């Protein structure tokens, strides 16, 4: 049985476990039909031209892990920003881990999607926001059909959340192969500010496929800083579907750090519904081996006087492949839009490849839009210059690559996170950098 058939046929059993009377039931039923029609994307779909899911869909994934599997904090501590206090929503094999989590209902809601979907208290927010900004493509619909667990974050107006929120999905290898479908909803109301760090981490080498959907709503003047740390092991694949709806004067940034994983596809979509706002999409990708990372971004400028900034850096070695597909749409009404996009890549081996494709669809006339894409090797004259000062080749290369990704790092606002990313980059590049840039 194909994975698609398996998923479709297990839907009934899944629905029996959850609350059939809930409003979400209709949404799920609709969604499974959409998935049944559309299925998984193939390379025939324009947006999937350079990314084939064949190699990750071939496993016989268990779609509902049966056993509970506990993780000891000491074993997974390193995956948290443990030197600062944070809220934590932690899922282990798709199930809530209460002892690893630190949720709250004190003025803000940082809790579980399962609770939000079932309790009357959250009904209004769910009705207003759940599955609203998410699109109805095959993968997102598949997630919607099985949406049950994940992070639910609601920040009412005028709150600056003092601690960052960590959303961590662990898989334990309890099942030979596991498919996860986390569903997150983040609603940030007027004037509020929140920082969120998301991570998917498999603790064994068993294959894992995560098809994640995150909906983020930033209401008027809200500030949301979202960081995705993708450093999973080489048998774990991730399809991340993130949808951001912004209202007037809001500021949303999403940083994506992609270092690990077998196949990673980031579908990152921004919809600007209002004036005077900005959206920031930054990424650093450093991969080798046969790893594949695909950034597929969309920024839709709907109203006037808004900005978007995209800055993606990639370093590819061995047989690694990268894709950057950045789409910017500027509606006819969206005058005075400033939309910037840049994608810079370094290829360290002959066998590494990057496909970089900007797509600008501009229907307004008074706009500033730019895009730039570079693909290069390390600069030999810079290397000689550094070596002539006594810096060995390996360190010189590391320093150059490190400096290359620096722009993106400098906009990380959580110092402890920045430090970790710095270390991850240094490790990934095999250099020992004795200072902070």
């Amino acid at each position, binding site marked *: 049985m194909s994975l698609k058939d398996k998923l479709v046929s297990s839907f009934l059993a899944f629905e029996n476990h959850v609350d059939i009377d809930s409003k979400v039931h209709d949404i799920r039923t609709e969604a499974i039909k959409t998935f049944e029609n559309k299925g998984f994307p193939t390379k025939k779909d324009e947006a999937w031209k350079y990314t084939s899911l064949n190699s990750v869909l071939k496993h016989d994934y268990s779609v509902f892990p049966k056993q509970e599997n506990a993780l000891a904090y000491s074993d997974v501590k390193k995956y948290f920003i443990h030197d600062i206090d944070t809220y934590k929503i932690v899922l282990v094999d798709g199930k809530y881990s209460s002892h690893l989590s630190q949720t709250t209902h004190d003025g803000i809601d940082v809790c579980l999607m399962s609770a939000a979907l079932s309790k009357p208290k959250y009904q209004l927010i769910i009705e207003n926001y759940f599955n609203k900004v998410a699109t109805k493509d095959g993968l997102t619909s598949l997630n919607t059909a099985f949406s049950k667990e994940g992070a639910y974050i609601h920040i009412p107006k005028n709150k600056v959340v003092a601690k960052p929120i960590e959303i961590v999905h662990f898989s334990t290898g309890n099942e030979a192969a596991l498919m996860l479908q986390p569903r997150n909803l983040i609603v940030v109301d007027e004037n509020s500010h929140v920082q969120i760090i998301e991570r998917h981490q498999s603790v064994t080498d068993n294959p894992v496929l995560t098809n994640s959907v995150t909906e983020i709503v930033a209401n008027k003047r809200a500030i949301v800083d979202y960081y995705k740390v993708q450093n999973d092991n080489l048998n774990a694949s991730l399809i991340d579907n993130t949808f951001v709806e912004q209202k007037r004067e809001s500021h949303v940034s999403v940083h994506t750090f992609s270092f690990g994983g077998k196949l990673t596809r980031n579908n990152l979509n921004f919809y600007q519904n209002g004036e005077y706002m900005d959206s920031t999409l930054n990424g650093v990708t450093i991969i080798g081996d046969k790893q594949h990372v695909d950034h597929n971004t969309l920024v839709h400028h709907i109203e006037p006087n808004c900005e978007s900034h995209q800055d993606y850096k990639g370093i590819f070695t061995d047989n690694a492949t990268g894709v950057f597909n950045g789409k910017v749409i500027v509606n006819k009404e969206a005058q005075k839009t400033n939309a910037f996009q840049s994608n810079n890549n370094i290829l360290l081996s002959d066998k590494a490849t990057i496909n970089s494709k900007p797509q600008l669809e501009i229907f307004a006339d008074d706009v500033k839009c730019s895009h730039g894409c570079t693909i290069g090797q390390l600069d030999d004259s810079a290397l*000689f210059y*550094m070596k*002539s*000062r006594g810096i*060995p080749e390996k360190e010189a290369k590391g320093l*150059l690559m490190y*400096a290359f990704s620096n722009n993106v790092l400098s906009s990380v606002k959580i110092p402890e996170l920045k430090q970790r990313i710095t270390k991850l980059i240094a490790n990934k590049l095999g250099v020992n950098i004795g*200072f902070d*840039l």
Partner: protein
Amino acid sequence: MLKINNLHASVEDKTILRGINLEVKAGEVHAIMGPNGSGKSTLASVIAGKEEYEVTEGNILLDNEDIEELSPEERAHKGVFLSFQYPVEIPGVSVTNFMKTAINETRKAKGLEDMPANEMLKLIREKSELLEIDRKFLSRSLNEGFSGGEKKRNEIFQMAMLEPKLAILDETDSGLDIDALRIVANGVNKLKSKDNAVIVITHYQRLLDHIVPDFVHVLYNGRIVKSGGKELAHQLEEKGYDWIKEEVNA
């Protein structure tokens, strides 16, 4: 200290150096002059170990050791320093961080521990004052957006930090105004001792008024065609290179 014997070098099958002989002893200052395109920068790069140049004949001895097989960084660790005619921009790496890395890598190569942070700061302060470099400058990306003069001054700052045994200054005077020239020359002179040596590549007498050479060599068409004392530089300043070219071609 440095002995170059019958050095031939080429790049992309094009011969540039055609038999250079030069001996530089500790405590000496040598000037190398010559028309554009004669091979001065190539000679400097070959001594520093730039890989794209191929030594086809002859050798370079540093303290009696043939350095042909040494990488640029190994030569640097042995005390070779090249002040570039065109310093390279390194975006994203500050002057300070670059120097910290260079100094600690050099120490590591000698089996020493990293320089303690306070000592490093003191050294940076001392040397930046010597070259009258503003502190703000040190946190900027190396050479990025620097003016020609700033780049050259920064090269000598690096030289002061690294205290090389053999410094090669490739047209360090170009791009410098009179004041900057005096500051840079003063910096070089402060570092001069009986144990180190300097090779100054220049077109002009004016730098040599400040850094006084013991020997002046004229490089033309890949060979040293004339050597003399500091008066040769005055002669060249007055008469240009045509008379030398005529002598050679005769």
